[in-house]
């Protein structure tokens, strides 16, 4: 029994964790192309990444696009979530379904749809085009996260605030938002990360001026197996991991403190 569990664990490590982590040593490899194990060690490719606008520009693009996606997603999802969680209205389940739709449609289908749609709008290969497409993909997760936290919210807090003289706007600002902020932050973070590491749709709708980092990596690995890709992968990996793990650490820290 014990032996079985151990070998199962080894398989998981070999096929799930190892491919994730193999990029880290490869990024310090002195080889001229991607290979494992590395023949020698160097940090030269980190220098190459930070010194080359063909890499830094897509990185900046990706960050800007992901920020815009997070903002736009929250601007749309916040009122939608409040309406769907707190009110009853005709067509509610249809709206619910519509919000969740991007989760059910394969990315490649969405990509082709946006390709045709954005080209009609003359938004293909532009920032707004990529932002719109990524926002559509981010909506379902942000909605799920935010509605889960809103459902757990005690409405008597808002009633208390109003009875104490807070207008509806002041109630939202002083009570609803501060109490729900972990939910808002998590939803925005999901939207950001979703856009930041999205590849398929970006391949179709981003262009030379709106090139995102994953798309640049894809283009690069098709032409040359440049070890800079391992550098980018490592940086991406640690950035996203930090974005996901730090809030968890912070929460358990602030809980143990109180």
């Amino acid at each position, binding site marked *: 029994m014990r032996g079985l569990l151990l070998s199962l664990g080894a398989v998981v490590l070999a096929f799930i964790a190892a491919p994730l982590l193999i990029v880290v040593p490869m990024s310090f490899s002195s080889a001229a192309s991607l290979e494992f194990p590395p023949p020698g060690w160097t940090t030269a490719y980190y220098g190459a990444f930070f010194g080359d606008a063909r890499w830094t520009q897509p990185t900046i693009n990706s960050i800007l696009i992901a920020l815009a996606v997070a903002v736009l997603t929250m601007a749309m999802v916040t009122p939608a979530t409040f309406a769907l969680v707190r009110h009853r209205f005709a067509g509610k389940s249809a709206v619910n379904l519509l919000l969740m739709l991007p989760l059910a449609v394969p990315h490649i289908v969405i990509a082709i749809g946006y390709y045709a749609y954005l080209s009609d709008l003359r938004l293909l290969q532009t920032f707004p085009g990529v932002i719109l497409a990524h926002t559509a993909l981010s909506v379902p997760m942000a909605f799920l996260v935010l509605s889960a936290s809103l459902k757990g919210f*005690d409405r*008597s*807090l808002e*009633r*208390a*605030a*109003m*009875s*104490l*003289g*807070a*207008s*509806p706007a*002041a*109630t939202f600002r*002083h*009570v609803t938002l*501060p*109490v729900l902020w972990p939910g808002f932050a998590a939803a925005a973070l999901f939207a950001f990360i979703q856009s930041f590491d999205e590849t398929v749709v970006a391949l179709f709708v981003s262009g030379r001026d709106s090139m995102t980092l994953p798309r640049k990596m894809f283009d690069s690995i098709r032409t040359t197996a440049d070890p800079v890709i391992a550098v980018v992968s490592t940086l991406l990996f640690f950035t996203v991991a930090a974005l996901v793990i730090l809030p968890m650490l912070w929460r358990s820290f602030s809980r143990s403190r*109180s």
Partner: protein
Amino acid sequence: MSAPYLELRGLGKSYDGRTRALDNVSLTAAKGEFITFLGPSGSGKTTTLMLVAGFESASEGDILIEGRSIGRVPPHKRGIGVVFQNYALFPHRAAAENVAFPLLMRKMPKAQAMAKAAEMLGLVGLERFGGRYPREMSGGQQQRVALARALVFDPALLLLDEPLGALDKNLREQMQIEIKAVQRRLGVTTIFVTHDQSEAMAMSDRIVVFDGGRIQQVGAPLDIYRYPSSSFVARFVGDSNILAARLTDPAGGQAEIAGIGTVRVPALPAARAGDAIELLLRPECLKPGSGLDNAARLTVDVIVHFGDSALVTGHAGGTPLRARLEGLAAQGISAGDTLPLSWATSSSHVIGRDAAG
């Protein structure tokens, strides 16, 4: 009497357009009065409070304070303090900041608001707890913060919805006394909701008994206890014997009870001989011996001793009867005994008839 301070005028509410949660609720309250809404779960107590606070809008009727309608005033402009059953303290603010919140919303300078909040926390015995967050306080302490927060802005009205329901018995009794003391001191007109009749008896100037979305009776605690207007009220408020009787001489005050025989009842000049009535006899009005106006012989089925008193249940010629006897007087009684009991006519009440008799 001058115009009432608070008036509920024919309030009705339907949440779904078909069933009525509240029907024709009318009530007046004088300034400084402590009124308790008492009734079983689902009887419309909370709904009435929600209408007064403005969180729900009435389907019919109006609410007036000092003669002015507040039916269309939004909740944040009503100036009504509300204490919720779950306290509803803001978890991200310390106790003092919770209490200062209504003052800050009224644009009071921060330093002044914090000073007044500290003063209010002192009034509820929490002067040293201002820096604590709600999650760091016990249920009773949180309840006091909620009370201070609802009172700090001199509300026109204080509403409390089953505020003590989550506390254990000892703490609940202590909080009853404290709430009552603070309310007296500040003279704020108060509506207190509970489903606990002893709590209602202990705290109120007047009790409003609710059932099925309607007011069943309004009156001072002892009046409601002694002269309930329906068998529902009689059963809900206190322990009771409700005996079916038939009037033999209404003006002379005589009736016939199966298994007990002819008894004297409060005179009912307007009734007719042969009318069926319900006679309320509180268990503590039945005394051992045969010294009082009316006698019955109780065959004991069960006796439960509480120390200071004992509850005897049994029957008198087939009519079930409960008697609450003093602890010492009940010593030595056991199941199967037959006890002579008697009661004073003036301690009985004919349900649904005027208390005048």
